[in-house]
């Protein structure tokens, strides 16, 4: 009877934990939506119509749902990338660059490998290989930043930003140069189309949603499992929460920092690889403007929990996807959507405002300033 009582209180505790964790994001979204509505009203729009348009555009038809899932896919991967780094105590601002690196290499393997080899590859080899190479290169790209952090103390925020510049400019150079699509009609900086054998099939005929979306959900589950159920996850979290205790516990802190950053980069690289192999079938300059930065927002909104990230990615995807329908119905500028997103983030990041508005007491640990005596 003891265990039964415990299991009841455990489920209660889990529910409590979930509602605790999602309360602030939920109220932040609510507040942003209300404020957004007021702003829409003042610029002369009809808030209800606008939000109806948003919802219809995002969820109103099978096609709308499919497109929302298409948007959500890179958001999930990139959001997981930022969240994993957060868990390891690292701030990966470089998802944008890692994503571009992943996309470039997947595209390269996708269109050039058969040429190099001189024969066609079966999908079962070519597609996974294209994804794998993109993912690993993303990981390598971020791993460099991890190495710099571990061995020179160079801060990952600065270095990931620098690596973003390098990645994006190099990409531009390649897409305008040796990797450029040479077809006579093309004037854009983009690669040739990848081979059929490197393309991910769509899930349903006639809809763009592809297996990469399912993969994103599986990877989200995998990351949750990795972080919470494995020895490696324990090490990553320990280093993130208390590097001194991690060292004491015998964890190789430097190695863990590099590994965390590399894993994070692999996830961001995957976001790029999947866009190339699942959706665009090529890499084109500027296709990803902002995924890597939205990912930071998604990781924050999702509280770095994989489930939270999937939900936050859907919210962002729905807003992006529903925006054009909203615009169509109300003639409001799409920029309003970016503004509402920004408001949500503002409230999540500055949760003191939300706590103040709704009179919620702060829970959890107090900040330790200098170390006195614990108790």
């Amino acid at each position, binding site marked *: 009877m003891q265990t039964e009582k415990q299991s009841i209180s455990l489920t209660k505790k889990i529910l409590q934990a979930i509602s605790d964790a999602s309360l602030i994001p939920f109220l932040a979204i609510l507040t942003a939506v209300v404020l957004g509505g007021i702003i829409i009203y003042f610029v002369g729009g009809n808030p209800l119509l606008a939000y109806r348009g948003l919802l219809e555009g995002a969820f109103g038809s099978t096609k709308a749902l499919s497109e929302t899932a298409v948007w959500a896919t890179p958001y999930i991967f990139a959001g997981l990338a930022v969240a994993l780094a957060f868990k390891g105590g690292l701030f990966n601002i470089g998802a944008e660059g890692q994503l571009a690196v992943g996309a470039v290499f997947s595209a390269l393997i996708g269109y050039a490998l058969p040429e190099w080899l001189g024969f066609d590859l079966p999908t079962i080899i070519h597609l996974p290989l294209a994804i794998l190479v993109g993912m690993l290169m993303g990981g390598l790209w971020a791993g460099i930043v991890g190495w710099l952090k571990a061995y020179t103390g160079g801060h990952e925020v600065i270095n990931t930003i620098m690596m973003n510049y390098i990645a994006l400019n190099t990409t531009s150079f390649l897409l305008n140069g040796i990797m450029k699509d040479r077809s006579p009609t093309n004037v854009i900086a983009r690669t040739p189309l990848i081979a059929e054998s490197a393309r991910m099939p769509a899930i349903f005929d006639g809809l763009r949603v592809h297996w990469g979306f399912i993969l994103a959900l599986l990877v989200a589950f995998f990351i949750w499992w990795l972080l919470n159920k494995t020895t490696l996850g324990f090490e990553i979290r320990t280093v993130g929460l208390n590097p*001194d205790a991690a060292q004491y516990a015998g964890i190789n802190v430097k190695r863990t920092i590099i590994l965390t950053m590399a894993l994070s980069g692999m996830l961001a690289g995957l976001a790029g690889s999947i866009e190339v192999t699942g959706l665009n079938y090529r890499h084109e300059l500027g296709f990803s403007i902002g995924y890597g930065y939205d990912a930071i927002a998604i990781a924050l909104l999702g509280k770095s929990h994989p489930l939270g990230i999937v939900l936050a990615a859907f919210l962002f995807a729905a807003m992006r996807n529903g925006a054009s329908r909203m615009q169509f119905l109300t003639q409001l500028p799409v920029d309003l959507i970016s503004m509402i997103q920004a408001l949500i983030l503002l409230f999540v990041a500055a949760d003191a405002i939300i706590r103040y508005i709704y009179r919620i007491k702060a829970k959890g640990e107090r900040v330790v300033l200098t170390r006195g005596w614990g108790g």
Partner: protein
Amino acid sequence: MSEPKIVLEAKGVTKQFPGVLANDNVDFDLRKGEIHALLGENGAGKSTLMNLIYGLHHPDKGEIFVNGKHIAIHSPNDSIAAGIGMVHQHFMLIPVFTVAENVMLGDETTKRGSLDRVAVAAKINKISKQYGLDVDANALVGPLPVGIQQRVEIVKTLYRNAEIVILDEPTAVLTPQEAEDLFRIMRDLTARGVSIIFITHKLKEVLAVADRITVMRAGRVINTVKPSETDSAQLANMMVGRQVILTVNKKDHEAAEEILKVEGLSVRDQRDLETVHNVSFTVRGGEVLGIAGVQGNGQTELSEALTGLRSPTSGKVTIGGKDLTGKPPRIITEAGLAHIPEDRQRHGLVLSYTVADNMALCDYYQIPFSVRGVIQPKALDENSRKLISAYDVRTPSPFVNAGKLSGGNQQKVIVARELSRGNVKLVVANQPTRGLDVGSIEYIHSEIIKMRDRGVAVLLISAELDEIMALSDRIAVMYRGQIVAIVDSKKTTREQLGLWMAGAHVEPA
């Protein structure tokens, strides 16, 4: 003479935390100008009661009166306004700010919109002089010794005109000399009408400085007594609810082969100053070598170098015949080290991990806690339940975050984890009983002696001379980074050790 008036009174205060009734209908009062000591086991609810009075937590039931007036305390702002100040077990100072900036934080004095540092510094220096605190308003807080940081906290309360000052285990981090200074300051304060609540686990201190003593157990007040009417044994008995043996029983030791051998070890600290110079000693299986010394004489760096947290600049460390100089902690732990670190919250625990996770912090990767890279929650759970009951850790369950435990119980989590690990050959225990109640100290001392009797080598580093004398077979005295004497513990006296610790050149008797 009539009794001085009551300045603070808590009536029927009750506080329930998930799974623990931390304060159960507590009545407590404080008179003007007195030092009222609060005693009790780890987890008895002392810090909780103080946090309720200071407004960091909210009582479920009960009322608080200041100078006879009922006051509603919603946050520390209310209690500060009512003249209450608190120095926490954790200091709350910002290391990169000066003393003056720290003191004015949250109560900034401005002059035409900018901070008036000069006026604040002048007021701080005045307070400092008045109470003999000896604090420099313009010094940076970070590099100050703990004892001085604590005084900054006291200045902070006085600066806000506190008439009631709460000190939560202030002496746990102080050297005996610093503690003496603190007691002098406390007497100065009470002479000027300030009233003090003083929490400590050291019965001697309580008997020496308190005007009244209140003992708590399991969230309830057991009794309030005067020091003249009681003694250590009776206080210990009230706290724990049973007889406590205040001396350690230990048989003569049969030391076996050498386990730890340190040769010519020198270590630098993070400022790159050499704080351990050319130290050599050995510890044999079945003996306790105590390292006595005033804190800050290189003990921290010595233990860090032995346990792999810091690389020595020269010298050699062997454990069980293996050269482990400068090896990482994992290798040393696997060679048989158990390490109770000095700073439990920095090294010893991950506060936001559960008790169960913390109890496997050093061998989480080994069977049974991990199997093929996957953590086994069941094994963690079983292990922690076993240790929780063996070491009497007061926690509602193994799944509570370690940060939610009382200070002493956090320490017990570490001690339990380290002493229970298999294949331990050497224990390095740095301040193992800091912040523990007498009952827990008794238990941990007996566990250390049990380890010794099983043939384990024990290196005990402690600022408590009593602890060193009670447990050690041999005692080494550390002074300015050197070992100035190593003696048989039966052939020395407190006085002689005290002289060595102060740097006097005396030959062993």
